[in-house]
């Protein structure tokens, strides 16, 4: 009898509330995914395991192998390679690599962001040839780029000769090998990637937003900083990370355009792997590089997401 009385009272909820439970009941899919969605998720997961985690595990394992002097290596569990990494020299190299790549990323973005902004504001008939030229630059191999910059920044045939001819400089000067040459070379390689990362979102910024800012008294320069940059914050971070990770793995540029003190960790990895045949040691360094760059990507995107959410 009491149960019967409770029944109707539960149904007789006030009108606005009566609808709510049924709304929740209508979506049972949220708890269990249909098999099709599961399959779609499985494909990228599998690829991630096969092409990323697998090699990563192999490399981790290799870093514990024992090196045989003058030749090969054999499976073992030794810490030789990791102990060598712990020395001051390699801490210094890791920090230097990160510093070079951060400087390069900042430099590339400082050039690529305004460039891409003006590119997206051009008419299509000017945009397309420029985009094709940028894509064409991607076909150049890193080796060619490195030696080209070596020539451009060198003493005998470099740009300083033009400056001397113009009377700006007293005598031709060489910037290569050097820190400047390394950053310029790396920035050059990374520039097209950075432009292509920024292009889609910058081209979507409505012209009327820019014009509205101008009618409110903001100069084009001011508009760029208070409207365009904040609206592309996420893409700036993405571009920055892309250039950073990309240049961290590049070794030819640093090797050709820098002195040994300008060599990044990647140069030492390739050096150990190809010239010294010390694969376990190269693997340990590669692990260090991967973990470092993952950490920096993680920290930057976390900081970036926080900032975007706050505004």
């Amino acid at each position, binding site marked *: 009898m009491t149960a019967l009385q409770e029944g109707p009272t539960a149904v007789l909820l006030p009108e606005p509330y009566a609808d709510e439970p049924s709304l929740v009941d209508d979506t049972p899919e949220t708890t269990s995914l249909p098999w099709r969605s599961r399959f779609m998720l499985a494909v990228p997961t599998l690829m991630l395991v096969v092409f990323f985690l697998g090699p990563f595990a192999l490399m981790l394992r290799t870093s514990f192998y024992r090196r045989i002097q003058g030749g090969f290596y054999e499976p073992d569990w030794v810490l030789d390679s990791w102990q060598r990494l712990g020395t001051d020299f390699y801490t210094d190299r890791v920090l230097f690599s990160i510093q070079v790549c951060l400087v390069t990323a900042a430099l590339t973005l400082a050039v690529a962001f305004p460039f891409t902004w003006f590119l997206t504001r051009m008419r299509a008939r000017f945009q397309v040839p420029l985009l094709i030229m940028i894509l064409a630059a991607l076909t150049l191999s890193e080796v060619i780029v490195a030696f080209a910059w070596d020539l451009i920044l060198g003493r005998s045939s470099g740009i300083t000769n033009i400056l001397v001819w113009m009377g700006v400089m007293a005598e031709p000067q060489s910037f290569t090998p050097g820190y400047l040459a390394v950053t310029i070379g790396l920035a050059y390689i990374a520039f097209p990637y950075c432009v292509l990362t920024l292009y889609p979102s910058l081209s979507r910024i409505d012209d009327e*937003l820019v014009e509205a*800012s101008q*009618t*409110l008294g903001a100069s084009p320069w*001011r508009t760029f900083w208070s409207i365009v940059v904040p609206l592309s914050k996420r893409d700036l971070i993405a571009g920055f990370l892309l250039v950073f990770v990309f240049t961290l793995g590049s070794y030819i540029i640093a090797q050709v355009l820098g002195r040994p003190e300008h060599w990044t960790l990647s140069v030492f990895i390739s050096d150990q792997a190809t010239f010294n045949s010390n694969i376990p040691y190269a693997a340990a360094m590669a692990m260090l590089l991967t973990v470092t760059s993952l950490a920096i990507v993680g920290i930057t995107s976390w900081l970036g997401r926080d900032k975007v959410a706050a505004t």
Partner: protein
Amino acid sequence: MTALTESASPPTAASSRAAEVGGLRLEGLVRRFGSITAVDDVSLEIPTGKLVSFLGPSGCGKTTLLRLIAGLDTPNRGRVVLDGEDLTATPAHDRDIGMVFQSLALFPHLNVRRNIGYGLRIRKTQKDQVANRVDELLQLVDLDGLADRQVSQLSGGQRQRVAIARALARNPALFLLDEPMSALDANLRESLQVELRLLQQKLDITTIMVTHDQREAMTMSDVIVVLNEGRVEQVGPPLEVYRNPKTVFSATFLGSTNLLRGRKLSGPNARINGCLFELDDAGLPPVGGAEITLSARPADIMLERSDTAAASNRLPGTVGFVRDLGATFECFVECGFDEPIVVQGMSRDLGDIGRGDEVVVHVPPESCVVVADSPTASWWLPDQAAS
């Protein structure tokens, strides 16, 4: 032609003072895009404190003209003069304007308060002054309590109000509106039109509005500028333009009309389709025998039974269709023109007239306006521009 400043409402102290200085003056503006001339030699005088509408179909150059005034585009020829100061070469950010864009162009990364205060912060206004002004504006546009909302959390009408408040924040000399209500649904649009017009009158701010909606232009304007193919067709107060259209385009774009083509006779008479018409329009071409076009609004002409046929101003015809909407009716009468003559009236006056009936369309002299095929002389220039 009446001067613009002598329009419907009596001139306020502010507007009569500005008439001496000049308000906004456009002098022979031309803007070409490749082979297309978007704005073709436009000269206008816009009095201070009035709301002027640029009315025309899409592609008539009205938005381009507004952009030239805002400084978002540069004319190929001509000048933009505000209160005696030549602004033609001044970039938008140095002009004293506030503009509401068609897309509203609210900054998506800023909340309501920061959107409205943007122009003030740019001008390095004190923080507390910005806050006070923003509160004042929020109250003005009825958005109290929404200051901290994100733009994406607002309804269409609320966004509209934010855009208006943002444009007004700096108390601009010119308030520019580019099809400001095109994104809103019909009901909201109608009520906002009234509200915006009242706001404009309260602030006594010189306003230029671009629209293709004749209802909007009639509702809100002190002066309507009818634009077609980059040229000014007619300028005048809404009712003046409606009642005395100067060109075929003005007559057809602002309201619907019947165009009657015929020949001028000597004296104030014309012959239309073999019928004698008496006219009392002062703007008649002087030459007898010239071709003329008359515009007669559907609501200004009458239907009569064929047995009432009289001497002049009556066209015999056959009723082709009657659209009776209960309160009003529209009757389409075939009178031997390409198009049927449309007669509008109150349903209770329709009587038993129906399809196929022989009727007479009575076009009284005061309903006939002679219209030109294109704008000709500078008759539309206000008197003050000449002096």
